[in-house]
């Protein structure tokens, strides 16, 4: 239905007023034209934004949400392109199992597809499909952190491409497709920063180099 119109108000409202001796029923409708106007303008401004540790922390504080890695009690910590180890107590608060992230502006990692979807439901945002991801990052001109150029960088200082893999809502059976590659990727290794690369993980998987971005 209508959601909000361009003034940020709800489009339809039913109100029942009760006084001592009478009841008033009021129905207000704001024209559909106004709603369409806002929808068009919203579509024109679609933007992909990496979810940071700070934003995810707020979500957890507000909702008490527990991530898949916290439920399992362990997660995967990637040492380099080819080496993955299982680390107890690795989860979004301690991505390597030992330390908290150095900055709250880093992309949140050690989150799964399930965690990303819960965040989206709470924040009223959505995960991009794989194709949407590539469409929405094409104008990002910030430096691409890949090929071991730097450690994981703050979300607002690096290109969305590279840095950490992003979870998308594109499915293959029970697996979801990752996009964008991480700082380990290069043309000679995992090719993650190229659109043709196909990497799938299951819906519970977290990794120190997997985060997510949402469409706002």
């Amino acid at each position: 239905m209508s959601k909000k119109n361009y003034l940020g108000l709800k489009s339809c409202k039913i109100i029942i007023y009760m006084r001592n001796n009478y009841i008033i029923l009021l129905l207000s409708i704001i024209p559909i034209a106004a709603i369409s106007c806002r929808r068009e303008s919203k579509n024109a401004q679609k933007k992909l934004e990496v979810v940071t540790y700070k934003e995810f922390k707020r979500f957890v504080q507000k909702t008490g949400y527990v991530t898949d890695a916290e439920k399992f009690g362990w997660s995967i910590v990637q040492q380099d392109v080819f080496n993955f180890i299982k680390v107890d107590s690795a989860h979004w608060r301690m991505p390597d199992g030992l330390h908290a992230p150095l900055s709250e502006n880093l992309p949140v990692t050690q989150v799964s597809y399930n965690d990303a979807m819960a965040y989206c439901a709470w924040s009223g945002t959505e995960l991009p499909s794989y194709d949407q991801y590539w469409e929405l990052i094409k104008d990002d001109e910030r430096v691409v952190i890949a090929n071991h150029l730097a450690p994981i960088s703050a979300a607002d200082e690096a290109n969305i491409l590279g840095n950490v893999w992003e979870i998308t809502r594109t499915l293959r059976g029970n697996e979801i497709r990752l996009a964008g590659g991480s700082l380990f990727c290069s043309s000679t290794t995992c090719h993650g920063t190229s659109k043709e690369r196909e990497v799938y993980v299951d819906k519970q998987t977290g990794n120190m180099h997997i985060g997510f971005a949402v469409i706002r």
Partner: protein
Amino acid sequence: MDETFVLRQRLKYEWRFFFTEGANATRVNYGRLRYQIGLDIPIKEDTESSWKIRPSFEWFFIRNPAEFERFSNERDFRLLAIKENKNDHELSFGFIREVYYGLNSEPQFGYLFLVAYSF
């Protein structure tokens, strides 16, 4: 304000029409200005919905108060409890305490309870 509270202000202009039938049929129309200020105080939030309390004051201004005694210089205090679902639908309920001035300028009080559903 910090992120816990949201200060809300609303300025609205309304054009009102009244039609009555019968021996004393009337056709009245006039405009009035409304100004509301209040707070949104979140009290509970989970992945499906959020609850907040919204206390607010609202003033009504019309050009010729004497003509429309019931609504002239009215001031409301509203206290609403609002449940907002993630699909953007909103259920609210609460009460309104009205203060308004009749032709004799004596303040009068009214109390209303309301239930509203917005979508």
